C-alpha cells in the first residue's frame, strides 16, 4: 500500500524533535534531559505542552514547528468545558497495530425537548452514573445529546438549560434549524457544545453560530462524501475552527455504505494525508430507532448496540445513542476499552507468588495463569472478598486457562515448576492446591509431578469464596 503520511508517525525521529526543543535539560517535564523527552514525544508518551519552557513567548516559533510536526492525521477537537470536557479525534493511524488509538470513542446518550423534565433529569443522571469497573479501568459514558423534536425554540432552550444545570457532561445540540440552535446556545453560551449540524442548505447560519459561541460544528452530508468534504472546506474557509464529519449512519441494507464511508474517510486522512477527511467522525447508532414501527424495543436496542460496536471498530470518534440499558451498553463500552488499549503492551503479568490478606500456614493455595485478564479477574475476586490466601501465577505466555490447556501453554510441568519456584512449601504446612475448574483435565498430572494433592476448584473465580467456605480444609 502506498503509505504517504503527513508528519508521519514513522518518519519522525527524536533528533528532529530535539532540534526544536529548548535543549536546557531543566527536568521540569519530569524527564532527565531534552533528548529523552524528545524520545518520549516521538513515542507519544508525553504531551508537548509538558515542556514548560517551550510555552514561553520567546519559544513560540519552535512550539509552532513542533506542533506542525506532531500534527495527528485526524484533528483533535474538544467538546465541552472543564473537567468533563472530552477530546475526540486526534488519531495518528488507521490500524490499531500501527499505534495505540488516541481518544476513545465518546458515547453520547440522548434526551429530547419533548420529554418531561423528570424524564430528562433521570436520563441525564443515568448516563452520568453509568460506571463499570473493568481491570482497573472505570468505563463511563461521555456526553448528552439533546434533540429538538418539538421544533419549538423555547422548548429546546428550556431543556438545554435543564441539562446544563443537571450535569457538567459535554452536550451535543441536535437540530438543523439555526434559529432553534441559537436558542439552545443562548441557554448555555459558555458550554462549548458540539453543534449538530451544518448541511448544504443551512451551513452559513450554523457557521456564524459556531464562531459566535466558539463551539465545534458537525458537517453533515449523509452518504455523499463529495458534498461532505466540500462542506468541510466551505466551513473551514468561512472561519469555523473545529469541524466534525457526519457521513451518515444507516442500518440494515445501508450497512455497506456506512462502513465504506467511515473507512474511506479514515484512509484518506491517515494514508492520503487529506486535511478535509482528517476530522473526527460522528456515528449515529440511534438511527436504529427510525421507522421503528412495531418492532420490540429490545430488538432495536440490540441493533443499536451492535451498530455502535461496528462503528467503534471502524473509526467513529463520537457516537449518539438512544438506548441506555446496561445489557446493551456493557458490550459496547468494554469493546471500546479493548480497542483503545496499547497493542504493544503485553497482556501478561509477571508470574510468581501473590499474597492476599494475612494468610497463615493453613491458608488455601490456588493457582491461575499470567494472562492479565485472567489474573486480574481472579485477584479482584479474592481481594473484594477479603480472603486470606496464596495465589501462584503460572507462566502461560499470556494464555488464559482454557486456551492454555488446549494450546499446551498451561501444562502440569509448568504448574509443578511454579509451585516449587514460589517457595510456598515453606509458607504452608499442608500440601493441597486448588486448581481452576477449567484446568481439571491436567489435575492428575499435576498431582503426579508436584506431589501436591489437587482440589479441582470452580470454573469461574467468582465462586472461590463459596468454594473455600464449603470445601477448604488444610
Amino acid at each position, binding site marked *: *500500500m*502506498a503509505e*504517504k503520511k503527513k508528519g508521519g508517525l514513522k518518519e519522525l525521529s527524536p533528533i528532529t524533535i530535539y532540534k526544536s526543543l529548548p535543549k536546557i535539560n531543566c527536568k521540569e517535564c519530569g524527564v532527565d534531559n531534552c533528548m529523552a523527552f524528545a524520545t518520549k514525544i516521538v513515542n507519544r508518551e508525553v504531551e508537548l505542552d509538558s515542556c514548560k519552557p517551550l510555552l514561553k513567548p520567546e519559544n513560540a516559533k519552535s512550539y509552532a514547528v513542533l506542533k506542525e510536526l506532531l500534527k495527528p492525521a485526524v484533528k483533535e477537537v474538544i467538546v465541552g468545558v472543564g473537567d468533563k470536557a472530552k477530546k475526540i479525534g486526534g488519531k495518528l493511524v488507521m*490500524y*490499531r*497495530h500501527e499505534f495505540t488509538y488516541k481518544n476513545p470513542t465518546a458515547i453520547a446518550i440522548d434526551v429530547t425537548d419533548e420529554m418531561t423534565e423528570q424524564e430528562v433529569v433521570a436520563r441525564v443522571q443515568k448516563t452520568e452514573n453509568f460506571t463499570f469497573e*473493568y481491570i482497573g479501568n472505570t468505563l463511563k459514558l461521555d456526553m448528552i445529546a439533546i*434533540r429538538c423534536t418539538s421544533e419549538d425554540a423555547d422548548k429546546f432552550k428550556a431543556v438545554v438549560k435543564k441539562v446544563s444545570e443537571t450535569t457538567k457532561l459535554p452536550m451535543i445540540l441536535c437540530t*438543523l434549524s439555526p434559529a432553534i440552535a441559537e436558542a439552545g446556545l443562548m441557554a448555555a453560551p459558555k458550554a462549548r457544545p458540539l453543534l449538530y449540524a451544518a448541511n448544504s442548505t443551512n*451551513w452559513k447560519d450554523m457557521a456564524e453560530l459556531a464562531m459566535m459561541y466558539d463551539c465545534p460544528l458537525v458537517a453533515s452530508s*449523509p452518504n*455523499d462524501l463529495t458534498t461532505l468534504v*466540500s462542506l468541510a472546506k466551505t466551513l473551514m*474557509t468561512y*472561519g469555523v475552527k473545529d469541524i466534525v464529519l457526519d457521513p*451518515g*449512519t*444507516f442500518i*440494515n441494507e*445501508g*450497512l*455497506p*455504505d456506512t*462502513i*465504506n464511508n467511515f473507512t474511506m474517510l479514515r*484512509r484518506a486522512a491517515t494514508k*492520503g494525508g*487529506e486535511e*478535509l477527511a482528517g476530522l473526527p467522525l460522528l456515528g449515529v447508532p*440511534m438511527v436504529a*430507532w*427510525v*421507522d421503528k414501527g*412495531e*418492532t*420490540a424495543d*429490545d*430488538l432495536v436496542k*440490540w441493533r443499536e448496540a*451492535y451498530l455502535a*460496536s461496528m462503528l467503534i471498530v471502524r473509526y467513529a470518534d463520537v457516537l449518539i445513542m*438512544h438506548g441506555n440499558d*446496561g*445489557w*446493551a451498553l*456493557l*458490550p459496547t463500552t468494554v*469493546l471500546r476499552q*479493548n*480497542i483503545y*488499549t496499547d*497493542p504493544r503492551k503485553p497482556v501478561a503479568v509477571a508470574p510468581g507468588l501473590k499474597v492476599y490478606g494475612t494468610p497463615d500456614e493453613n491458608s488455601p493455595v490456588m493457582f491461575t495463569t499470567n494472562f492479565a*485478564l485472567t489474573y486480574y479477574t481472579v485477584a479482584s475476586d479474592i481481594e473484594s472478598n477479603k480472603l486470606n490466601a496464596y495465589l501462584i501465577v503460572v507462566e502461560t505466555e499470556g*494464555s*488464559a486457562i482454557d*486456551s492454555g490447556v488446549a494450546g499446551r501453554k498451561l501444562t502440569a510441568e509448568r504448574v509443578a515448576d511454579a509451585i516449587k519456584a514460589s517457595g510456598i512449601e515453606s509458607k504452608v504446612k499442608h500440601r493441597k492446591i486448588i486448581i481452576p475448574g477449567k484446568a481439571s*483435565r491436567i489435575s*492428575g498430572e499435576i498431582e503426579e509431578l508436584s506431589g501436591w494433592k489437587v482440589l479441582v476448584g470452580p470454573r*469461574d473465580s*467468582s465462586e472461590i469464596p463459596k468454594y473455600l467456605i464449603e470445601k477448604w480444609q488444610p
Partner: protein
Amino acid sequence: MIATSQNDNDKKKDNEGLKLSDDLLEALAKFQQIELEDFQMDVKDLEIIFEPGMAGQIMPKLKLPGAVAGGKPLSMLQIPFLPPIETYPNKIAEVTLGATRKDGGTRGKSLTIGGEVSPAFYTFERPMPHKPVITLDVFDMEVPLSKAVKMHVKDVVGDPAAWAKLAVDKFGADMVTMHLISVDPLLKDASPKDACKTIEKVLQAVDVPLVIGGCGDPVKDTAVFEEVCAQFPGERFLISSVTRDMDVEKCAKFIKKAGHAILSFTPMDLNLARELNRRLYDYVVKEDIVMDLTTAALGYGLDYAFTNMERARMGGLMGDTELAQPMSSGTTNAWAAREAWLKMGAEWEPRELRGPLWEVTTAITLLLAGVDLFMMMHPAAVKTLKDVTNYLSGAKKADPSKYANWVKVKA
C-alpha cells in the same frame, strides 16, 4: 421491519425476565429477510474504473469556485472526493468445504470461503468474493453450557444428530461443527470407531458441510482423525484442528488422502501460524488450509485477537503468503467471559440478552478484521451475524432520506 403481533406482546407480558431472549429470537426470526442479489462484479472491471495508486491524490487541489467575500465564501465551495482505492499484490486462498455427490461426498451443497483481494468489507474497493460462513457447535456429550445457551438446546443435548438438525433447520447454520469431546482420555475416552458412529448419524441428519472437532489431546485426536479420514473419504470435512504438537506430517497425509481440509490452529502468535502453515505446505495445497489464530472473548483479549487477525489479513494481501489463508474464529469463546453469563447487578440484566450480544459483539469485531468462518453457539447471535453479513455483502444502497430525520425521531 418487524411487526410484533399483539399476541406476542401479550405473551411477553406474561413471561417477564427469563423469557426475554425467546422473544428476541422470535422477533429476530420474523425479521423480513431482504432478498439480496448476488453481488457479482468482476474485479478486473473495478480496476479499470479505479486506477491503482490514487491514494496520494485523493482530493486534487482545485481552484475553488464560488464567490468569496472578505475571506468568507458566499456559496458552497466544491471539492471532489475520490474513493481511496488501493491494490494488493496477493490474494487470500479459496477453500471449499463439503462435497456433493457429484464431487464424491453426500452433502447437499458445498461452501467456499476466502479468495479476498481487499481487506474485509472494503466494498468501495472491491466486492467480497464469498460471504463469511457460520458453523454451529454440536457436542457429543453433555458439556457445561451457560443458561442463555442451554435454554435453546436443552432438548437435544446428548443427541448430536438432533442437535445438528436443530442447528440447521431452526437456527440457520450454514455448517455444523461436530465436537468429539467424548474421545478425551480424561473424559469418556470413547474410541475412534465410536466417534465415527456419531459422525455417521450427523451425516444422515443434515446435508450441510461438517467441521470435525477433536478433544484437544494431540495423540488421541490424531488417532480419531485418522479413523474419520479412513471412514469418510470425499466428504470434504474441515478437520479441527491440526496443531504444532501433533504429528503434522502424518495428519496432513491422511487428511489429504481423504480429500478433507485442515484447520491450522495456533495460539495467538503470527510467527507460529506461519511456521505451522509452512510445515503443512509440504503436504497439502493452500486451498486445503483454513487458519485459526485463536479467538479471545470480548473483554478477555479480544483486542489482541482482533489485531492479530487484522495484521494477518493485511499481511496476506500484501504478500506474506504464509498468512494468505482464510481465517476461522472460535467465536463461542465469547462465553468464556463471565460478563456473558454471570448474574450481575439489576442494571446489567437480563443476562439472556447480554450474553448473546456478547457473542455478537465478539463476532462482528472479528468479521471486520477478516474472519471467513465463524464457529458459534447462541441462535440469536447466529441470526444477527447472518443478517449483518448478508447486508454487508449486499448491493443495496443506503437510503439517506429514510434516516435524514433521526434528530426528530420520537423514540
